């Protein structure tokens, strides 16, 4: 079902809140654990590069590289195609990760709804 349609059809209880972070423990269900995301650029580097707050994500080191490259070769900005590609790929991976987090949240919400319904059924039978 499309994202717009699901706002009107279906159970609102299993609809993740896209404005807030995940409500479940991020390690819940991962028996072997998860790899932690690593921030490579330090705060000093970002401040020194005057990086905007919106760019200070996990791709900040690539953003700094890209900006520095552009500054060095300007106006021949096409020479930074490699840095730009790397930076945009990192943003793409970040986007996919957020999509996965959303889907995980949705499935966990549906699972908890199922579990609650099952518990209620068993309580009725007892």
């Amino acid at each position, binding site marked *: 079902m499309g*994202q*717009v349609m699901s*706002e*009107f059809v279906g159970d609102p209880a299993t609809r*993740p809140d*896209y*404005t*807030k*972070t*995940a409500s479940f423990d*991020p*390690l819940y269900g991962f028996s*072997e*654990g*998860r*790899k*932690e*995301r690593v*921030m490579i650029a330090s705060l000093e580097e970002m401040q020194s590069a005057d990086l905007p707050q919106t760019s*200070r*994500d*996990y791709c900040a080191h690539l953003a700094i590289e890209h900006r520095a490259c552009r500054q060095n070769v300007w106006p021949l900005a096409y020479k930074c195609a490699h840095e730009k590609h790397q930076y945009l790929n990192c943003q793409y991976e*970040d*986007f996919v*990760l*957020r*999509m*996965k*987090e*959303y*889907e995980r*949240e949705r499935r966990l919400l549906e699972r908890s709804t199922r579990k609650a319904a099952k518990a209620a059924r068993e309580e009725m039978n007892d």
Partner: protein
Amino acid sequence: MAAISRGILISRQYSGLLGLQTTRYAGAWNKDWMPGPYPKTEEERLRAARKYGLRPDEYKPVPDDGLGAGDYPDVPLVSAESRNPFTNWDYPEHRRNFGEPLHQNFDIYGLDRINESQEPRFSSTHQFLSFASVMAFFIGTYYFLENRKMHWPLMPKQFPNEGVAHYTFEKPE
């Protein structure tokens, strides 16, 4: 004097021009066209009726309500748009005949202005309900969609912060 008049008439025939104007205005300035004071005695009333070219029995001054109409006659109001367009009017652009007394607010009841006897096309109730239903539709849509905003199926962007751990979906080494 007669020779001058004759000369003017003859010159009008031969020159092709309209010739000299031999009439004069009843007034020379705006204030000369002002109505006189409101008639109080019968004699004043008769004089005012004669001034406006009305019979004494049909002359009735505008009520003295302090708006300065003076002795101006109270002419029944018929807007130009309400008059018969097929009549052979002397002034078709005003739908008025020569010498016909003018309403005191004649200038706002012309063909391009107000038609005093016109009925509105839709009743006030109809107008109000139309307005209210359109506004209700848009405001209702706004409030209905207030908590149903379109968005990508994404969780918020993760920013590194002190004391907050973010994870990928890969296994740790």
